[in-house]
């Protein structure tokens, strides 16, 4: 069954995707459930015109984006564009990221500040996808994706570096 295949192959990646969209652990658990339910339902419509991976990420990102939009309606979290993120002061992020855990927290904190489309792009990038695959998932051109990736990863790398990452 497609859902079982998806859950076993992409379950961990979907958990990571949920972390990029929701900081609160309880709400994140709900979001993971929502994503799985949406996936389970969506396979009735899966016609094989795109790869299983693309389908899964589209469904997951759309469900997570809907979740973010609903959260924005409930209370306004601060989301910023890339220009604003580039200019954001680092004063609040001066703690030293001395291990993997802190490095991940720092990375998540930065990703969670991004607007949904940028978040979709960077999460897909971090999952190891190329621009063409990300374009297929997000519906924007590969060129646009490449530009976004270049900007986002440079911002993240700079911030990551400032935090003193030791990823291994």
């Amino acid at each position, binding site marked *: 069954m497609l*859902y079982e295949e998806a859950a076993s192959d992409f379950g961990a990646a979907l958990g990571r995707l949920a972390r990029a969209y929701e900081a609160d652990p309880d709400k994140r658990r709900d979001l993971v459930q929502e994503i799985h339910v949406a996936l389970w339902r969506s396979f009735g419509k899966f016609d094989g015109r795109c790869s299983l991976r693309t389908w899964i990420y589209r469904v997951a990102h759309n469900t997570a984006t809907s979740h973010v939009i609903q959260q924005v309606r409930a209370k306004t979290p601060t*989301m910023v564009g*890339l220009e604003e993120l580039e200019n954001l002061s680092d004063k609040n992020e001066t703690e030293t990221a001395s291990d993997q855990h802190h490095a991940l927290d720092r990375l998540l904190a930065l990703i969670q500040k991004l607007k949904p489309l940028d978040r979709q792009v960077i999460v897909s990038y971090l999952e190891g996808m190329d621009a063409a695959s990300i374009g297929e998932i997000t519906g*924007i051109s590969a060129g646009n994706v490449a530009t976004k990736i270049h900007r986002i990863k440079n911002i993240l790398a700079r911030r990551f570096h400032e935090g003193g990452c030791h990823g291994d």
Partner: protein
Amino acid sequence: MAIDLLQKDMRNVWQNQKAEGAPMSLEEIRRCARKLYKRISRRNLREYIATVIVVLVFGFYAVWFHSVTIRVGSGLVIAGALYVAYQLHRRGSARTSPEDCGFECCLDFHRRELERQRDALRSIWSWYLGPLIPGLAVLVIGGELARPPGFRHHWIAFAVILTFCTLTFVWVGKLNQIAARRLQQQINELDATANQQ
């Protein structure tokens, strides 16, 4: 070279993060889907129960009281409540969010949903408050006029009742206009998000 290493670090940190919670079984997924469906059904049921209560109460008035005014007023209230229930069902039922399309189509869906809700709130007088007015007006004003002269309220008391009813409707109308403005703000925010492309 340094940037490449950092990017590798980021991917490494990202992909090696500790998994949270146990994977969901198929049975759990089905249970969640059922819970979601029940939540929507319960919301719809509440609307129908409210309508049934209005129909029963005013139906009882129409049968029990012999006054033509009360019968006509009750009939109009029932007709208004049924119309409101139909409109709530037509306007309120949530559309299924698109699952298999890109970011832009997902935002389009949410924008259309917000516009639909905003328009429903803006036009609250035409489909929610308005249809209830004729019946209530007949019951309050007509009911008062139908009383024998010695049993009528003092005109000041009657004016207070009338003002209270009018203000309640105006207040509900205003609240909905405020909610519609909030939805418009959310639409603007969503547009700002869409324009980031």
